[in-house]
C-alpha cells in the first residue's frame, strides 16, 4: 500500500506530531491511561502483506469474511436464544418470534435437561423450566416443535453433556414430521471441554464425553450432512472472565482437542471440519471485538490448512454465531442495556457473523418478557435495515487501528495455543487447571478495575441513580411449571411400552460398554420414549460422573 519513501515521510511527520502532542499533554494530561496507543498510522501496518494476511472476502485466510458478498447477498440469521417453562410455552414463544421476523430458532434448555436429569429428580427441585425449557422425553420435543416445520427452519440447541441424546430426539421429531435426516439443518453445541472450565453443565468425565462427541461427528457426516456437529463455545469462556485474546485462544485449543480426537478414531478432516461452527461473544469494546472476529477467522484458516492439511475451503472457514455479552448487562438502570446490546450487535455485524442473538435488556434481572424479547430482535432488524452497517463487506478493514488490533489478537492467541500445546493439549491443561486459573485472575482484575473506578460502568460506579426503583415488569416462570412437568412425566411412564424401553436401554448399555457408535442406539431409545434421565442414567453407570477441582 505504501512504499518505503512514503513510510519514511509518514514517520517524520508523526515525530513532529508527537512533539506537539507531548507539549499539549504537559498542559492537558490524558484523562486515563489506555492499553492502546493514541494514534495509529500506516506505520502500524507497514509490514502487512495485504493479499496473504487480509485478502479478499470468501478467500483464504478469510480475514474479511467467509463469503464474497456477505450481507449484500444474505443477512445474518437472526436467532434469539429462547426457551422457558414447558414445551408448549416455549413453542408459543418460538412461533411469536418467527412471526416477528426471526429467521432461525435457538433452544434454551433448563438445567436439569442440560445435566441429564428428568424433572422428577431430587436435584431438579426448583430448577424445572427456569433457565430454559424442560425436556424429559421425545413427547416434550414433539410438543416443542408442534406446528413448526423443522425441515424449513434451522435450529440451534445449546446442549453439551447430553447433546447426542437431544440430537437423537430431534432426528426422531423430524421423522414424525416426515423430514429425512439429510434435510435437517442446525447445530448442537456439543462442546464439553468448555463446560469443565466455564459453564459447569458437565455430566461425564472427559474421555467418554469426547467419545460421545466423536460419535456425533461420525454419525452426522454419514447421515445428517447439513448438521453442525459442534459449536465450539468461545462465548462461555469469555463470560466466565476471559479476555478477548483468551476467548479465542482457549476455544481454539479446545477445538484442536476435538479435531485430534476425531482424527484418532479414523475420521477424515475434510469430512467433518466443514461442519464445525462456533459461538463467540460480542463484548463492550467495539473495535477490539471487530478485530477479534477478523483475527479468529485468519488464525483458524491457518490452523486448518497448516496444522491439519484441510483442503476444502469450507473446512478452513470460521463460521460463527454471536451472542451479545450477558455478563456486562447491569441490573441498575436496565434501559441502558438497550444501548450496550446495540453496539455489541454492531460489533458482531462489522465482524462478519453468520448468525446473531441479542440479549434482552432485562437479563441481569430475569428471563426476558415477550416485550423485551421483541425489542432485542428489533435491535437486530434496525441494525440490518436502517444503520447501513450491512451495506458493504468488512467495512472497518484498512483502519490502521483495527488491522493492528487484528494482528495483535492473532499473535497473542497463537502464543497461548503454543503454551497449551506444550502442556499436552486442552484436556490436560484443563485437568491442571491452567485455563481456569488464567481466567480467574482476569475476572478478579476486571472486578477490581470497576471497584477502583479504573473502568467505568454507567449506572453502577458513575452516573448512579440513588432513587432508582426496579420495574416490576419481568418474567416469572409459573411455580407450578415443575409440578405439571413431573405429572406429565409420570403419565408418560405409565402409558409407554416399558418392555421396549428396557430393551433399548439394555442395548444402549451394551454398546456404551463397547466401542460402537452410540447414535443409532440413542435414536432407538428415544423413539420408545425412554427419558433423558433414564438414558443418561445408563451412561452415568457406564461412564461415571465428573467431579470438579475446587481451586478458586
Amino acid at each position, binding site marked *: 500500500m505504501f512504499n518505503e519513501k512514503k513510510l519514511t515521510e509518514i514517520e517524520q511527520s508523526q515525530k513532529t506530531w508527537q512533539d506537539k502532542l507531548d507539549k499539549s499533554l504537559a498542559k492537558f494530561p490524558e484523562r486515563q491511561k489506555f492499553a492502546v496507543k493514541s494514534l495509529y498510522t500506516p506505520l502500524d501496518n507497514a509490514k502487512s502483506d495485504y493479499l496473504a494476511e487480509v485478502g479478499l472476502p470468501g478467500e483464504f485466510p478469510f480475514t474479511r469474511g467467509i463469503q464474497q458478498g456477505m450481507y449484500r447477498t444474505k443477512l445474518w440469521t437472526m436467532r434469539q436464544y429462547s426457551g422457558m417453562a414447558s414445551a408448549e410455552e416455549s413453542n408459543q414463544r418460538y412461533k411469536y418470534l418467527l412471526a416477528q421476523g426471526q429467521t432461525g430458532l435457538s433452544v434454551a434448555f433448563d438445567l436439569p435437561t442440560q445435566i441429564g436429569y428428568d424433572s422428577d429428580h431430587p436435584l431438579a427441585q426448583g430448577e424445572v423450566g427456569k433457565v430454559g425449557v424442560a425436556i424429559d422425553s421425545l413427547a416434550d420435543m414433539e410438543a416443542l416443535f408442534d406446528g413448526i416445520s423443522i425441515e424449513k427452519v434451522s435450529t440451534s440447541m445449546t446442549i453439551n453433556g447430553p447433546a447426542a441424546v437431544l440430537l437423537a430426539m430431534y432426528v426422531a421429531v423430524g421423522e414424525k414430521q416426515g423430514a429425512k435426516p439429510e434435510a435437517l439443518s442446525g447445530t448442537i453445541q456439543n462442546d464439553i471441554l468448555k463446560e469443565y472450565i466455564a459453564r459447569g453443565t458437565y455430566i461425564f468425565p472427559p474421555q467418554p464425553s469426547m467419545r460421545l462427541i466423536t460419535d456425533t461427528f461420525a454419525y452426522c457426516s454419514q447421515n445428517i450432512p447439513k448438521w453442525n456437529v459442534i459449536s465450539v463455545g468461545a462465548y462461555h469462556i469469555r463470560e*466466565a472472565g476471559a479476555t478477548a485474546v483468551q476467548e479465542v485462544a482457549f476455544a481454539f485449543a479446545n477445538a484442536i482437542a476435538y479435531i485430534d480426537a476425531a482424527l484418532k478414531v479414523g475420521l477424515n478432516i475434510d469430512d467433518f471440519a466443514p461442519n464445525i461452527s462456533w459461538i463467540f461473544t460480542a463484548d463492550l469494546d467495539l473495535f477490539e471485538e471487530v478485530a477479534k472476529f477478523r483475527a479468529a477467522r485468519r488464525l483458524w484458516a491457518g490452523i486448518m490448512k497448516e496444522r491439519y492439511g484441510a483442503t476444502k475451503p469450507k473446512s478452513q472457514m470460521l463460521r460463527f454465531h454471536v451472542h451479545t455479552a450477558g455478563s456486562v448487562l447491569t441490573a441498575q438502570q436496565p434501559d441502558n442495556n438497550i444501548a450496550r446490546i446495540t453496539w455489541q450487535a454492531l460489533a458482531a455485524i462489522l465482524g462478519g457473523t453468520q448468525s446473531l442473538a441479542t440479549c434482552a435488556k432485562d437479563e441481569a434481572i430475569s428471563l426476558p418478557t415477550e416485550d423485551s424479547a421483541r425489542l432485542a430482535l428489533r435491535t437486530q432488524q434496525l441494525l440490518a435495515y436502517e444503520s447501513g452497517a450491512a451495506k458493504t463487506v468488512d467495512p472497518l478493514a484498512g483502519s490502521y487501528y483495527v488491522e493492528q488490533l487484528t494482528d495483535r489478537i492473532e499473535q497473542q492467541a497463537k502464543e497461548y495455543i503454543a503454551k497449551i500445546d506444550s502442556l499436552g493439549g486442552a484436556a490436560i491443561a484443563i485437568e491442571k487447571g491452567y485455563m481456569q486459573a488464567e481466567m480467574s485472575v482476569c475476572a478478579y482484575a476486571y472486578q477490581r478495575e470497576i471497584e477502583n473506578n479504573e473502568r467505568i460502568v454507567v449506572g453502577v460506579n458513575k452516573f448512579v441513580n440513588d432513587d432508582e426503583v426496579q420495574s416490576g415488569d419481568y418474567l416469572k416462570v409459573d411455580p407450578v411449571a415443575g409440578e405439571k412437568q413431573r405429572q406429565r412425566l409420570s403419565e408418560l411412564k405409565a402409558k409407554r411400552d416399558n418392555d421396549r424401553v428396557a430393551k433399548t436401554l439394555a442395548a444402549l448399555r451394551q454398546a456404551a460398554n463397547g466401542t460402537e457408535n452410540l447414535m443409532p442406539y440413542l435414536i432407538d431409545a428415544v423413539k420408545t420414549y425412554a427419558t433423558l434421565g433414564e438414558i443418561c442414567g445408563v451412561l452415568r453407570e457406564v461412564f461415571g460422573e465428573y467431579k470438579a477441582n475446587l481451586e478458586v
Partner: protein
Amino acid sequence: MMKRIRVLVAKPGLDGHDRGAKVISRALRDAGMEVIYTGLRQTPEQIVETALQEDVNVIALSVLSGAHTYLFPRVMELISEKGMKDVIVIGGGVIPESDICALKATGIREIFTPGTNTRRVIEFIQTAVGE
C-alpha cells in the same frame, strides 16, 4: 486476637455460573477472611452440613438460574432445624427486587444483586459478625 471470620461460599442447585462466587471468594480472602468454596451442584442439605462441619460464621449463597426462590428458603429451613442460630446467611445472583423481601423474611440477612461492590459485601459481613 480476634478469630478470623469464616465464610462458606456455596453454589446450591444446578447453576454452573460461578464467576461471581469465585470473585467474591477472592475478595473476602483478600479482606482477611477464611473462605471455603463448595464448588458446583450442592444440595441445601450438603451446604448446611458443610457449614456445620466447618463451623462457619457466614454462608454466602450464589444462584443465577432463578431457582433461588426454592433453594434459599430450603437452606434457611435446614439451618433452623439444626439450630444454627448464629450463622449469618447472605445471597447473591440474578435476583429480582420483588423476590428480595420474601427471601429476607426467611431469615436471609442481605441479598446482593449484579453490580454490587465487593467492599459492600465485606463491610456487611464484618458488621454482621461483629454484632
